[in-house]
């Protein structure tokens, strides 16, 4: 059977790469004792598929992995078992069965929604920042909103993902900051991936859910 799991990547796990994440998931699967299926060939690997890679430093509530099992299990039991062995910062928050013949995650995922937060304390932003933010028209299709709450600037983004290439969230954010006349080092931006969406190629994208 094929089980789709929704996974978080939070806290200290933000700072590991996609490759590190893959290794972490494989170790957790091995520790779980679940009957994972393996690929064929000279170098058999556990059959796991991943949603598009997260860059280092980006947190997420909605990473998806598809796991192929050799015998049937209750998806909730799979989630529960993996949560027992995953390190802090990674949690399976939803699990469900997917048809074996269903298309791959990378084929269906069309868009990714992000939220970028910047704490503007001690940085040059000039006067009337609140006004500039309010008047900020959608200069870029990828920006869904820009809000200023006290010293915290929040930028919403929606970019093509998966098999469609799109701008990097970091670059979109840099552009917005520059448009707003904010001078700040890019490392201070905290980016979070809120949702992955499907169907964006055909029409309105809708959230991917298990």
């Amino acid at each position: 059977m094929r089980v789709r799991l929704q996974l978080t990547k939070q806290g200290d796990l933000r700072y590991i790469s996609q490759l590190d994440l893959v290794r972490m998931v494989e170790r957790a699967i091995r520790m779980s004792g679940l009957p994972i299926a393996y690929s064929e060939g000279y170098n058999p690997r556990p059959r796991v598929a991943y949603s598009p890679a997260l860059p280092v430093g980006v947190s997420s509530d909605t990473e998806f992995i598809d796991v192929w099992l050799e015998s049937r299990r209750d998806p909730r039991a799979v989630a529960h078992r993996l949560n027992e062995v995953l390190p802090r910062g990674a949690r399976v928050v939803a699990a469900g069965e997917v048809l074996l013949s269903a298309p791959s995650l990378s084929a269906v995922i069309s868009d990714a929604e992000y939220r970028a937060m910047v704490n503007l304390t001690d940085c040059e932003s000039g006067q009337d920042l609140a006004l500039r933010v309010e008047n900020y028209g959608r200069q870029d299709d990828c920006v869904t909103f820009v809000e200023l709450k006290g010293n915290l600037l929040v930028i919403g983004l929606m970019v093509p993902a998966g098999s469609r290439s799109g701008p990097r969230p970091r670059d979109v954010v840099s552009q917005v900051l520059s448009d707003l006349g904010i001078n700040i080092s890019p490392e201070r931006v905290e980016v979070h991936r809120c949702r992955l969406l499907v169907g964006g190629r055909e029409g309105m994208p809708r959230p991917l859910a298990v």
Partner: protein
Amino acid sequence: MRVELPHDLLMSVTRPGRYTGGEQNSTVKDHALVSLTFALAFPDTYEVGMSHLGLHILYQELNRRSDTAAERVFAPWVDMEQAMRARDIPLHTLESRRPVREFDLVGFSLQYELQYTNVLLMLDLAGIPRRAADREDGPLICAGGPCAVNPEPVADLFDFIVLGDGEEVVHDVVDCMIGSSGEDRGEVLARLSRVDGVYVPGGYEVLYEGDRVSGVSPGPDMPVPVRRRIVTDLGSVSPPDRPVVPLIQAVHDRAAIELFRGCSRGCRFCQAGFTGRPVRERSLEQVCDLAHATIAATGYEEASLLSLSSSDYSGIEQLCDRLGGELRRQRVSLSLPSLRVDKFSVGLAGSLQQVRKSGLTFAPEAGTERLRRVINKGILDEELMATAVAAWQSGWDRLKLYFMIGLPTETEEDVAGIIELVRQLKQRHREGRRSGEFKGRGLKLAVSVATFVPKPHTPFQWVGQLSSGQINERLQLLRSGFGRKVDLSTHDPLASRLEAVLARGDRRLLPVIERAYELGSRFDAWTERWRPELWDQAFRECGVDPARYAERQREPEEVLPWDHLDVGVDKEFLWNEFQRALSGDLTPGCRQQCMNCGITGRYGAVCGGRERPHAGATATDETR
């Protein structure tokens, strides 16, 4: 105090995962609920330190105690060092992010001499005065590990140093410190000096005469010699079955299972072998249990059986057969580094059929049978060939060979011997492929050539290293002899020269190390950071001639800077072995015949000669 590592700081350095902690099997304790806090400091990067089994052994051993909290700290990379200095962030541990200077005890693992500048880096970033004599309060700073058998160049940094196996002595040290809380520093150190295996450098005065050490004078009640601690039964200490699993890629991402300590071969250049005597094995049951427990606690897909010479483990074939089979069912592969050329067999090769084959590595070390007899590694050319053939017949087509340049009595003929050996191996492989005897792809042959470094506590501890000019000449001979078809890697002779200086150095070298650090030396073992010119400058400014340490032949009656540190092997035995080397005489290994090196019965060592140190294993006879 808990150090904050802001997001922007972590995003500005490479591999921020080195600094976050939060890994599986890490232990975070409330410091208010323990009697002693211990920072285990590894003076290299996270990825290197996390691949070191000793760290995991001590971490687990200490955290097993409810009265102790052990946490890890590694050397921050240069970009992190800069950021920490700019933001005034002190060196802190991964688990609690507490500054290292707030701990009761900080223990450095001294794995190799080129790490010494990183020790200074870490003390500096911790805000701890470097030299023991300058510290009035704050944590006690100690060290252990392979370099502890001659720690003299850095001895003045440490309040105390531990020689030998850590698992038992670490408890004695912790008990001693908890028991003497409230006493002043001098009192505590006096108590510690009475623990077997503990060396308090401040209690000894070193006297010099020209280039030589003329004596080491102990203060009142200081033991002479300092004894090495030996754990007799590996089954009696906590097995490191729950190692912390790094979140980022380490040098080795595998479950490390130690088969045995010590080595019975007596290869004359090998410090690890002589300072680890006698051989103490884990039983087959213990090895299998440990392997399964570790895999279950980590999810690693490879288990690696470690020792100085794994082919010598009693019942190695039986072990690999059984464990290999059990692990294969879990899709876990088994690897066995440190194989002997003369003990490799098709049977062993078969049981190591890994899910994915990596290469095989052997270390003939010398190019001719004559020189191999000098180093007591009497492998015959035809044994090397037979081993390679057995490996190729079993499907391995990647072979790595280790050699050394600059061994005592070496001539150009011996160097040419390396070239000839490689040529013969390649030819044999070609023939075998043509005839269909070996399947698989073309031969991948890698040759790694290091420079011989004379080490303390070995028969070659009196030998001078060749000058870097001479080394370069011989390396050039090799390079031109091999041509382009051989994957040849060499170690920088200048780095080997520094290693030779520090390995057999004395306390007069510390100012040089400090100066090199101040000039910017860090991570000297990393080729990308290695700056020999900084060391040259440091030696010049301190008025120390490195050649006097590296190249000078020591006299037989000379006091050696490490004579007051006893690993248990008699100096006369080492000298006799040196003479036998010069005559090209082989000495049988311990398992074949006891040569009275002195370790038997000393410091609790149980050395059975032909007896197995544990029950239920099959003896393997040595053929040499």
